[in-house]
């Protein structure tokens, strides 16, 4: 055979023996850089708790801590139980009974998700009290008006109404997955209807219910806008008050760290429960028979579903519209929200693009080189997303003040925080997209002479494009309605739509707040709902 010059071989060290999934160092470097912003503030908060525990508690007494813990826990438990009952009931009624328009009802009970909880709280304030919508309506028929909704019951109602849809969404597929043969087997073995529900149906629902409940518990723990506007003292409200009221930031920092520890427990439990929920997934051989409701039960069911939709969707939207129309017709000076809208759109747009760019290398690492180290990387990116954003925001603020002062009160810091907090949204989208592009397609490209980068450019990215776009849209719309971190990190005078709603509500300018809220719901929450709705329904 004629002598052939050997092709240039890539020389690498032999040991340890390379595994199939070993990622290039450059990819790891980029991935680590992308993850640092998610990791740093939380690490700093945890450290502040440890330090305070050793030396002093920064002026927060144990009594005060217990007081906050109790009031927060009561709200978390009350809302979690309420949403579990409401969500399971709506899910059951819209999947397993013969109610008319079940699909429509199922959509209607998830639509409250278009209302961020602080907008919901604004609507509750705007409907009650001396000049509220319901008060006016009641007075018109000669009844006394309503007192201002505030305190525990108001916060409980708001967080239940605007969170139960999550339980509904998790329960519907779980109920659909239930194999009717199991129920029939139980009945055939002589089990009564009620005993069958208790011993066969509920155990099948438990993983979804647990998962949904922990999710809601985490949201309640993290909620800042609703509890603050409705004046119920929880950790987040106390943290913000500490932060605003004093020059010394340490007490707020300590409380935030403590909140993060509590939230971490919930996050851990939620992730564990989700794994179980997947294990329980099974495919029924045929759809379950629908339960035929008798006329009284049917009436009750329609009444129940209607009052939920009215309370969570119709009344708040009506209230916001009423305040807007009344304010304008009475000639109250309403500032244009166009500058706020432009600020919201541009800062969210930049955050969305940067987040997607950061998500690409992370998605490749976690999907194509899956292993223990990449799983760790992934959990870190989730932490900033899952933990209370008020605490994460405070972590960013203090880190900037202590280590990079020029970043303090800049839009850049705000965008870094957004990217860190919402990276998982873009990452998940990219991961799913990448998972659908088989590895053999990339190998085919390599085999046809394209290197790793050329393959990324010619094959992977063109195929990944729709997923990246969806991820960007998700981040864009979510950033737009983010409140607590924006409040903490924005430069002075940098008012976004969310900030405008918050400040106008706090100062009782309900018309001004309602205008901004309606714009926000229209440009952010509604598109977000329809973007996610594709995955939510069937």
């Amino acid at each position: 055979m004629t002598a052939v010059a050997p092709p240039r071989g890539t020389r690498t060290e032999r040991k340890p023996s390379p595994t199939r999934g070993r990622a290039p160092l450059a990819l790891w470097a980029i991935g680590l850089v992308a993850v640092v912003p998610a990791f740093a503030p939380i690490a700093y908060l945890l450290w502040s708790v440890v330090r305070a525990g050793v030396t002093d508690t920064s002026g927060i007494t144990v009594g005060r801590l217990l007081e906050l813990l109790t009031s927060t826990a009561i709200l978390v438990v009350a809302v979690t139980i309420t949403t579990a009952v409401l969500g399971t009931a709506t899910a059951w009624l819209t999947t397993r009974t013969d109610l008319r328009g079940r699909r429509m009802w199922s959509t209607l009970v998830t639509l409250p998700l278009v209302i961020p909880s602080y907008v919901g709280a604004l609507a509750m304030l705007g409907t009650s009290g001396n000049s509220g919508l319901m008060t006016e309506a009641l007075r018109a028929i000669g009844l006394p008006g309503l007192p201002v909704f505030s305190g525990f019951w108001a916060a409980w109602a708001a967080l239940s109404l605007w969170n139960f849809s999550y339980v509904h969404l998790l329960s519907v597929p779980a109920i659909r997955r239930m194999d009717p043969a199991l129920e029939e087997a139980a009945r055939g073995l002589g089990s009564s209807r009620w005993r069958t529900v208790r011993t066969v149906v509920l155990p099948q629902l438990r993983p979804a219910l647990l998962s949904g409940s922990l999710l809601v518990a985490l949201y309640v723990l993290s909620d800042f806008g609703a509890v603050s506007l409705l004046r119920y003292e929880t950790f987040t409200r106390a943290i913000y008050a500490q932060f605003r009221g004093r020059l010394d930031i340490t007490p707020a920092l300590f409380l935030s760290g403590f909140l993060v520890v509590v939230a971490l427990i919930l996050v851990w439990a939620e992730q564990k429960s989700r794994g179980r929920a997947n294990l329980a997934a099974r495919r029924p051989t045929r759809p379950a028979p629908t339960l035929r409701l008798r006329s009284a039960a049917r009436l009750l069911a329609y009444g129940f579903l209607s009052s939920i939709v009215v309370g969570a969707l119709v009344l708040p939207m009506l209230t916001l519209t009423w305040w807007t129309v009344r304010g304008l017709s009475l000639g109250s000076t309403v500032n244009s929200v166009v500058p706020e809208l432009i600020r919201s759109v541009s800062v969210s747009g930049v955050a969305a693009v940067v987040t997607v760019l950061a998500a690409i290398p992370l998605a490749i690492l976690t999907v194509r080189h899956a292993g223990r180290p990449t799983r760790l990387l992934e959990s870190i990116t989730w932490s900033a997303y899952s933990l209370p954003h008020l605490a994460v925001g405070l972590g960013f603020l203090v880190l900037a003040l202590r280590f990079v002062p020029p970043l303090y009160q800049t839009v850049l810091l705000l965008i870094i925080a957004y990217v860190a907090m919402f990276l998982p949204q873009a990452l998940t989208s990219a991961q799913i997209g990448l998972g659908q592009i088989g590895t053999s397609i990339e190998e085919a490209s390599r085999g046809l002479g394209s290197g790793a980068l050329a393959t990324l450019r010619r094959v992977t990215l063109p195929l990944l494009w729709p997923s990246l776009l969806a991820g960007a849209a998700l981040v864009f719309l979510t950033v737009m309605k983010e409140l607590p971190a924006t409040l903490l990190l924005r430069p002075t005078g940098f008012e976004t739509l969310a900030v405008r709603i918050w400040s106008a509500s706090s100062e009782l300018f309900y018309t001004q707040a309602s205008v901004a809220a309606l714009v926000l719901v229209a440009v952010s929450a509604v598109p977000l709902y329809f973007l996610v709705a594709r995955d939510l329904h069937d």
Partner: protein
Amino acid sequence: MSNGYTLAIRARQVSRRFGDAVALDDLNLDVHAGHIMTLLGPSGSGKTTALRLVAGFDRPDQGSIEVGGVTVADDDIFVAPEKRKVGMVFQDYALFPHLTVAGNVGYGVSRESRPRRVAETLDLVGLGELRDRLPHELSGGEQQRVALARALAPEPSVILLDEPFSNLDAALRTRVRTEVADILRSAGTTAVFVTHDQEEALSTSDFVAVMRNGRVVQAARPSDLYHQPIDEWVAGFLGDADFFAGEAASGKVTTAIGVFPTDLEGSVRVMVRPESVLLAPSDNGGAVVRQRQFFGHDQLVTVALKNGLQLRARLGPTPYFEPGDAVTVSVDRATTFPA
């Protein structure tokens, strides 16, 4: 080369482990240039791993691999897959869904020669009129041929095909298999197939390497492999076979079913393939029909000999045998193994 062959692929002492599982264990493999070679083995025998190592999608833990006389992987060298000039046809075809047929076929070809090569290869596989279709608009058989054209277009020295027919339905499979083999022969390319289907391996290949537990246990021409398997496992994997004990002496082995020539001495095992067995109805025959499976084009008849041993015979659809019929058995060909 001294033996008159050029080796397109040469693998020596190649090992690959995934955790505790040994996928390849000291694999040696020669593929002659211009041949169609098939790696045949049960699932888990390491055949796909071997293919991926040759293509460069994975690295061996030990051993060396040469492609076209050039070392592409050993202890120090690892040539990236894009620099190996090895074409691959994937089990799921792995067509680029965002590119047309022409875009797929031209993917690996330089810009200047792209139009010419795309036209040539699409002609070769007979898909010229489908050049502007997208992969999802093609039938399974057409996708298969696009995948083949795409692998052929850059004129690789070797083409690797990983279970290429497993996604086709049975009726289509035989036809596409013949077409692909014809295309590969007319292109003069060296090809390595991977399959677990012995019929596919025997009918399309010049050479078959039987793999088991990460090793090549026997490599030979299909007919040699079928009639001269190296051991009972290979014999059984390639087709139905019955085994008998026998005593060999001075070039002959005596068994319950007759006397056959052999080179061995002493205790031996004798393999009989069902198609070497003839049955004739006979009232005073030495065997009784036990079972009959009728397939239409042939039938498989199981008979019991006087001493209780069973033997299978593959015959044409006639004559008609019933369980209980007395028959005489004659065997026209047998292979002996050391016991």
